């Protein structure tokens, strides 16, 4: 159920992003989704790729601080209010969403959204309870 996200520590240098994407490209690693969280001084690049193990390896070899983080990817109906319903339900269950971001690619009529929630197992229960479709890692990596 849990997808491995790659988090990379970045100083705020635009060039570093180019370097990472190029490095992954050279190693035939495909980026499915990405998001940057930053402050004025530094940031974290979050990546969903088709081969997280290899991605972490090549990034660390190049000297980057890279970690795998568990995230949940769900299918959200691509219509107004689609995401709102899910967030409301999570809040009701006292589950704190640390961050979320959407996929680059869509899957049919649905949007894919990445959730980082502290209590992942509880979150999965809540999401399944609402009938939200959770995407398996295999499905993501082979998109």
């Amino acid at each position, binding site marked *: 159920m849990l997808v491995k996200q790659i988090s990379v520590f970045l*100083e705020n240098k635009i060039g570093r992003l180019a370097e990472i994407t190029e490095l992954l490209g050279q190693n035939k690693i495909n980026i499915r989704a990405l998001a940057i969280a930053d*402050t004025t001084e530094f940031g974290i690049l*979050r990546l969903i790729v088709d081969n997280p193990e290899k991605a972490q390896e090549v990034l660390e070899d190049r000297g980057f601080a890279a970690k795998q983080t568990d995230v949940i990817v769900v299918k959200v109906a691509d219509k107004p209010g689609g995401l709102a319903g899910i967030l409301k339900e999570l809040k009701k269950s006292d589950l704190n969403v640390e961050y979320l971001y959407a996929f680059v690619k869509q899957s049919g009529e649905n949007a894919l959204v990445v959730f980082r929630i502290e209590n992942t197992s509880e979150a999965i229960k809540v999401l399944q309870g609402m009938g939200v479709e959770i995407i398996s890692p295999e499905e993501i990596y082979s998109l």
Partner: protein
Amino acid sequence: MEEGKNSIEFIRREELEKIQVNRLKKTIERANNSPFYKNIFKKEGIHPEDIRCTDDIRKLPFTTREDLRENFPFGFIALPLNKIVRVHTSTGTTGKPKAIFFSKRDVDEAAGLIARCMRMTGAGPGDVFQNMMSYGLFTGGLVFHYGAEKAGVLVIPAGAGNTEKQIELMRDFKTTIVHITPSYALYLADILEEKGIDPEEELNLRIVYLGAEPYSQKTREKIEKIYGVNAFNCYGLSEMNGPGVGFECPLKDGLHIWEDNFILEVVDPLTGEPLPDGKEGELVLTTINREAMPIIRYRTGDITFIYPQVCGCGRTHRKISPIKGRTDDMFIIKGVNVFPSEVERVLMDTPEVARNYQIVIERERSLDIMRIRVEIKKRFFDGSLEHLKELQEKIKSKVKSELMVTPRVELLEPGTLPRTTGKSKRVIDKRRL
């Protein structure tokens, strides 16, 4: 005290040297009451009778910053504690600071020297003096304050910072003299300009004492022009009472050291060999008129030279050049002395960061900014932005509480900073002085 041409400021050199020899002998006698010097004098067989001329000071050992630290707090006091009325500590030190003790007489003598400096620059009764240096443990506030009162001026103990209030005080009380750091003088000028106040027209300033930070002749001229004042360079260090150790006369070419209170030497920083006047080296000072805490041949770490020629003003006390640098890697920021090793100690206590670091000092709107650049450790990184922010905050507050300077903290990717062998260049000072 006698003023004018008959005063101690214009005393003949032979007379001055007689005073020095007598006072140095007395200093050795006094110092022998302190645990630190008693031990050293005994070990090296030093007696007051060994001193027959000023040059005999070379028979005495040096005292270093480390000696003061290691013997903190009472190892240097030469009087019973009940004869001591004040203590100041040095700024910007972690762990053991340097403590400097004053007897009632010491407080009075230090004030007398400041008063002498102020009169030399033309200050006196009728002047309104606003002291913009930090009060408290730092000597620039209280020591100068007492001296100014002794000089008979009206003193406003404004303290550092709070720019709005400073401006209000200057206007309300028609301040004629300020004691200020050069960087704050420039910052204040910016604020005055923003407020549309012309410092030359709307303020009553005529004299500015610039201290606690090194600066260039250009900066002085800029400040003189903006405020329409005479700006004088002052040099001091808490170990030698604080401000007023060296002070410019109206010729503004070099700082007179009051040689009836201090014996001055310039030595080769590596060998410790005394250098002739005119040669650049490390300034070494001995207090010869202090009773609570005599300090002998103190290695200041400041680089300067002694002017070989007599000053055109007629004062016989020799002059040193403005401080040209340091023998160590100490730097001064917002008037606070900072040693990179102190920043290092804070970082060493922070397991999340690597050993490699860099300190960048910049000037932003005339104010000094210290940026600490440090690499995070790979194993600390867990993908959380919050944790990084917390780490940044933690380093910031630790440095602030230990060094009294608030830094900006930059977290870097592992391996970003240049790896250097030996004494790497940790400090990058981008300020143009």
